[in-house]
């Protein structure tokens, strides 16, 4: 599949129908997930605020998932020098930054009623903040180099440096502060969340992921057209 999609024309033909299909799936899942989260019972400890989990935790997953996609696209772009992979990496970063910002903002709105403060410098919050700053740095580097190919390669190298560094940062921040509650969804011996919370959480996570997939494809299409427009403009000028 990857081989087939590496051809920009075939990618455009594929994404032409894949993006709308993913968008419809995302809309459906989003509707179902929202209905599930509104109808979920209140948590005996957190009360109604448990509903914030269904929009906050998927955003935090996506913040990391987008970075994995960014790293993978950058690796392919650097190793195979493929234009489409560069476009994919470039298209991925703003979406990742958006989900990361979303995770931070909804986290603050969840933290205020739960912890009594908008912001705590605990391990997970701090890691996500560093991830957000890293996305910004990535986009800043890309914007600061005029030559597109060189910008793509430089930011690709930075993405790989980040791919190695982010787990180290995560580890160091965890080491620095181990006060936070342990991760409660993927725990050994099965999930510890009751099913009436696990379902909305899972559906919302899938909805976010489908939305990301659709938007990623749309943005890669925009990149392909942008490259095409630039080369056409050059031809017309020259």
């Amino acid at each position, binding site marked *: 599949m990857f081989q087939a999609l590496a051809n920009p024309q075939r990618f455009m033909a594929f994404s032409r129908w894949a993006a709308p299909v993913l968008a419809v799936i995302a809309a459906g899942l989003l509707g179902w997930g929202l*209905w599930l989260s*509104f*109808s*979920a*019972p209140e948590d005996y400890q957190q*009360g*109604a*605020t448990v*509903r*914030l989990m269904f*929009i*906050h935790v998927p*955003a935090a997953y996506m913040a990391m998932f987008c970075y994995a996609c960014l790293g993978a696209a950058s690796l392919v772009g650097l190793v195979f020098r493929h234009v489409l992979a560069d476009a994919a990496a470039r298209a991925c970063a*703003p*979406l990742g930054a*958006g989900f990361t*910002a*979303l995770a931070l*903002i*909804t986290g603050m*709105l*969840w933290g*205020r*009623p739960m912890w009594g403060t908008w912001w705590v410098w605990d391990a997970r919050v701090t890691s996500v903040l560093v991830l957000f700053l890293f996305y910004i740095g990535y986009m800043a580097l890309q914007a600061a180099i005029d030559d597109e190919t060189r910008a793509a390669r430089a930011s690709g190298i930075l993405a790989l440096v980040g791919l190695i560094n982010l787990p180290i940062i995560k580890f160091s921040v965890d080491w620095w502060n181990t006060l936070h509650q342990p991760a409660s969804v993927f725990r050994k011996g099965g999930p510890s969340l009751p099913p009436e919370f696990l379902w909305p959480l899972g559906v919302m996570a899938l909805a976010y992921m489908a*939305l990301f997939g659709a*938007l990623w494809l*749309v*943005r890669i*299409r*925009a990149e392909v*057209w*942008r490259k*095409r*427009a630039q080369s*056409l*403009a050059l*031809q*017309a000028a020259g």
Partner: protein
Amino acid sequence: MSMTSLDYGKYAIFIWPALAVTAAVLAWMVADSLLRARYWQKKVQVLEAARAQPGEKPAP
């Protein structure tokens, strides 16, 4: 499945803004992606049309 209730009491001031922010950010991501794609698609169409008729200058 329990009763759907939209009355969140004292937590409403946190839950509704969180939903609103989520909706705003997701809507912004959708709009930005679609507008960007449409803008460059149009640009390509204009340039290709200009190339097909060499007499005319391409739109700036």
